[in-house]
């Protein structure tokens, strides 16, 4: 309906009715919008967190094999480990990883060095680091001074930062420092021919639990194997916990919805004399129901849309998303919060239906009940009588 459109008289009448009760209508609008915002924000956040983790964890290796000894983790001899892993049927593409967590200028960072050559299609203008150089994530780039980065405490290494990972890769690269294997080894305490661990992909993903015993037995030293589904389950548990917060936030929101509906019922019942006046002028009960439903929709639909749009922005736009994450997760740090929005549409439709339908039903039923009767009976409800 564009500005030139002619609106039905009943809708114009409803809008005039809103203008006559401006303060009450504004209050109803604010209540509905904030109710939708609070409920949708918490539910959208937990759903988005779960969807993000699920999508990204799908790319993770099925198994990670780490060598352990009496002192904890031990470096893995690459050639021996590769030969042992390849002996197990179902194991495909075992990849040694050179990585570790080292102290950076503003807290720990993840240092990685790719032993294999990164494909050109991946790089998209990012120059691979040479000796003494590094490519860093957005979180590390903020702490840089003069394009140099000093890492490590005992054997510190200083590299020059030649590029930063794009912001759209932040979910994987936020805390990353990508350098050459020769630069990374002193930081990680490794010598050439050693790796931090071994990433293993399986021909059948369902076998990741079953194959672990065979894989562990194939190595000549004790190893610890971490599987992808356990990590995915941990992440899912976190998301469910956030969903629990959403439920807690939903309890007062439901009470608020009950109050709004009660207010609507009381308001409609209190206007019986007004309905009687309209009826005595020739209005039918259906006209009055249409008037009230139109009035409720003029206030309710923009309020619900505004609440949903605000919640969506608060969850999926990074500056606001950080504040939302701080609030929902109780201050735990989620650095690269650009969440995946698949499934968000369904959550928003559910919230709109959860709030909008009871509100409209309350308006419809109470008006039907309050306006049903003879004009004389309704006029008797006037307090002056």
């Amino acid at each position, binding site marked *: *309906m564009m500005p030139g459109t*002619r*609106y*039905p*008289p009943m809708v*114009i009448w409803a*809008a*005039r009715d809103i*203008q006559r009760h401006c303060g009450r209508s504004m209050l109803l609008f604010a209540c509905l919008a904030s109710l939708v915002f609070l409920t949708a924000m918490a539910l959208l956040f937990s759903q988005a*967190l779960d969807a*993000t983790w699920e*999508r*990204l*964890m799908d*790319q*993770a290796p099925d198994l990670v094999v780490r060598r*352990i000894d009496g002192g904890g*983790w031990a470096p893995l001899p690459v050639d021996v480990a590769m030969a042992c892993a390849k002996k197990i049927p179902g194991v495909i593409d075992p990849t040694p*990883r050179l990585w570790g*967590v080292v102290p950076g200028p503003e*807290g*720990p960072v*993840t240092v990685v060095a*790719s032993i294999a050559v*990164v494909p050109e299609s*991946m790089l998209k203008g990012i120059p691979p680091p040479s000796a003494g150089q590094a490519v860093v*994530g957005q*979180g590390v780039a903020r702490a840089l001074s003069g394009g140099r980065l000093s890492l490590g405490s005992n054997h510190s290494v200083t590299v020059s930062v030649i590029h930063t*990972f794009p912001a*759209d*890769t*932040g*979910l*994987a*690269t*936020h*805390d990353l420092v990508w350098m050459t294997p020769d630069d990374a080894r002193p930081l990680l305490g490794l010598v050439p021919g050693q790796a931090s661990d071994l*990433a293993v992909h399986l021909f059948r993903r369902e076998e990741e639990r079953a194959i672990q015993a065979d894989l562990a037995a194939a190595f000549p030293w004790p190893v*610890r194997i*971490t599987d*992808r589904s356990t*990590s995915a389950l941990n992440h899912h548990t976190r998301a469910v916990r956030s969903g629990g917060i959403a439920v807690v936030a939903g309890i007062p929101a439901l009470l608020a919805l009950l109050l709004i509906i009660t207010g609507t019922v009381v308001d409609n019942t209190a206007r019986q004399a007004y309905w009687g006046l309209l009826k005595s002028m020739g209005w039918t009960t259906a006209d009055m129901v249409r008037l009230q439903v139109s009035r409720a929709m*003029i*206030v309710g639909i*923009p309020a619900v*849309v*505004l609440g*949903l*749009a605000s919640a*969506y922005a608060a969850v*999926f736009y990074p500056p606001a998303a950080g504040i939302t994450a701080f609030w929902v997760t109780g201050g*735990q740090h*989620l*650095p*690269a*919060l650009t969440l*995946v*929005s*698949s499934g*968000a549409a369904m959550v928003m439709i559910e919230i709109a239906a959860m709030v909008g339908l009871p509100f409209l039903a309350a308006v419809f039923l109470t008006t039907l009940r309050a306006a049903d009767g003879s004009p004389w009976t309704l006029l008797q409800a006037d307090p002056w009588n």
Partner: protein
Amino acid sequence: MYRPFAEKNYRYPAPCRGARRLLIIAITASMLLGIATAADLLRRIAHQDDGASAWMRTMNFSAPALWTAGSPMRHPETVHPGVDLRFSAGLVTAP
């Protein structure tokens, strides 16, 4: 039959113009917000995390960077088998 709203080039009476303006604002704002949200949703769903997924796959990361480096959620493979985190709840989020 008299049909007050049927004439061509009908002008609303003065008391109704504010109501008409209110309707225009309500409908336009709702449509704009709805369309903007839906468009952003469609834009994001298409290829939102392609870059992050590609780097996850290439570097063989075990978990996304939603948690600080060094935390068990970021690097689940670093959790020492000798330390059962069930008995030290605070360690779960400590770097």
